[in-house]
C-alpha cells in the first residue's frame, strides 16, 4: 500500500472534515435564529441557558466521552462524518464495526480508515434518503408505520440490533463478555432506575471489558 498517498489523503480528509463540520455547526446553531426570524420571535437565551444547565451539561460530558471512545474506532473520515450525522450508538458505531469485520480490516490501519468512512457515509446517506422519502410520504405512510399491530416491531429496533450483534461478538469472546454482561445485569436488576442511563453505563461496561481483554492479551504475550 502506498503510504505517501494515504498520508496525503488523510491530511486532506482532516481539512475537508474540519471545514464541513464548522459549516454544519454554524448552520445548526444559526437555524433556530433564522427560524425565529421566520416565526417572528427569537429564542429566549436566558431560558435556553437554564435548560442547558439542567440537561445540557450531562450531554456535554457524554459528547466528550463519545469523542474519546469512538474516534479511534472510526478513524478520521468516519469520525468527522459520524459526529456530523449523529445516531452513533444505535446505528453508526455498530454499522462501522460490522463493515470492518465483514471486510476484515484491523483498527488503526489505512484499510480500516477507508472502510469506516465508506460505512458511515453510506449509513448516513441511507438515513437521509429514508427520512426524506418518509417525510415526503408522511400522510400515506403514517397509518402503516403507526399501526398498533406493527408498534412492537418498531419499539424493539435497538434490542433486535444488539441481539444480532451480541451473538456475533460474544461467541468468540465469551471470556471477555461474561463479566460485563453479568455485572451489568446485576446492576440493572438491583437499581432498575439505571435503565434511563444505559448510554452512560456503556462506559463502566466498556472499561471492564477492555480491562479483561488486556489481561488476556498480556497473558497471551507472556
Amino acid at each position: 500500500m502506498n503510504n505517501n498517498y494515504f498520508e496525503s489523503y488523510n491530511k486532506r480528509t482532516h481539512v475537508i472534515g474540519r471545514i464541513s463540520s464548522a459549516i454544519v455547526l454554524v448552520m445548526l446553531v444559526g437555524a433556530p435564529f433564522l427560524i425565529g426570524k421566520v416565526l417572528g420571535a427569537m429564542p429566549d437565551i436566558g431560558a435556553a441557558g437554564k435548560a442547558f444547565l439542567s440537561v445540557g451539561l450531562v450531554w456535554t460530558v457524554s459528547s466528550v466521552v463519545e469523542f474519546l471512545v469512538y474516534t479511534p474506532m472510526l478513524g478520521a473520515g468516519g469520525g468527522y462524518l459520524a459526529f456530523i450525522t449523529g445516531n452513533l450508538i444505535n446505528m453508526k458505531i455498530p454499522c462501522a464495526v460490522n463493515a470492518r469485520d465483514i471486510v476484515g480490516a484491523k483498527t488503526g490501519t489505512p484499510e480500516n480508515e477507508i472502510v469506516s468512512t465508506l460505512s458511515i457515509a453510506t449509513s448516513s446517506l441511507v438515513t437521509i434518503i429514508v427520512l426524506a422519502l418518509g417525510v415526503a410520504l408522511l400522510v400515506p405512510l403514517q397509518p402503516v408505520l403507526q399501526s398498533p399491530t406493527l408498534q412492537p416491531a418498531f419499539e424493539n429496533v435497538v434490542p433486535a440490533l444488539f441481539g444480532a450483534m451480541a451473538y456475533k461478538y460474544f461467541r468468540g469472546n465469551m471470556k471477555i463478555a461474561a463479566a460485563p454482561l453479568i455485572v451489568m445485569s446485576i446492576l440493572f436488576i438491583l437499581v432498575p432506575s439505571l435503565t434511563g442511563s444505559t448510554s452512560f453505563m456503556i462506559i463502566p461496561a466498556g472499561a471492564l471489558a477492555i480491562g479483561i481483554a488486556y489481561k488476556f492479551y498480556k497473558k497471551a504475550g507472556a
Partner: protein
Amino acid sequence: MNILSLLNSAPMYAICGGIIAFVAVVCAVFMVRAYRAGLAMGIDRVKLKRAITSSATFSLLPSVGILLGVIALSGSLGTPWPWLRLSVIGALHYETQVAQAAAEQVGMSSLSAAEMTPSGFATIALLMSVCIMWGMVLSIFFNKRYLGKLGGGRKGSGGTGFGDTAMTAMFIGLVSAYIGSYIGGFVSGGGLFSFSGSFMPLIVVVVSGLVMAGFIYLAEKKKLAWVESFSIAGSMLIGMAAAVVVKLFM
C-alpha cells in the same frame, strides 16, 4: 395561522431541507474520496463494495425506526425540525429528552403543540442544537491531534497491537450494557425482583441472536459469504417480527 401550520410552512422546509442537502453532499464527497483512495491504495474493489452494501442494508431498518421518531415529534414540533434533527447530528434517545427539558424552561407543562409559542419553539430548537454539538466541536479541534497521538503510539509497538482487541472489547461492553438493561428491566422493572417488567426486548434479543447464528452458519459452513452483508438486517427484521407475533398472542 396556528403554530403547527407555521412550523410546517414552506420556509421551515426550505431551511431544514437546505441543511440536510448540504450534509448529504458532504457524505457523498467523503464516500467518493474514500472509494477512490481505497482503489488507489490497492484495496480489493469487492471489499469496498461489500462495505457499502453491508452498511446500506444494515442502516435500512434503524432508519425506519428513526423515521418513527420524526413522526412522534412532529405532533409537537412540526415535521421539518425533527426531520432535520434526526437526519443530521441528532439521536433518537436524545431529542425528546432535551426538547422536553427546554419546554419546561420556557414555561410549558409538557412538549405539546397546544402550548407551543413561536418564541418557545425557537428556544427549544436552539437548546436541541447546542446540547449535542460538542462531538462536532471536539472533532474540529482535536480529531487530528488525537488520532495522531494514537497512531504515534502504535508505531512503536508495531502493527495494530492491543488497539483492535480494545475496540472489540469496548463494543462488547456496549452490547452488555444494553442487554443487562433488558434483563434488569424484566426482573425488576415492575418492582425489585418482581419479574413483571417487559420481557419483549429479551425475546427480541434471543430471536435476532439465533437468526444471526443461522446466517453465520450459512456464511461459514455453507460458504455463502454474500449472506453476511444481509445478516444484521435479516436478523433484526425477524427479531422485530417476533415482537409483533408475541404481542398478537399475549
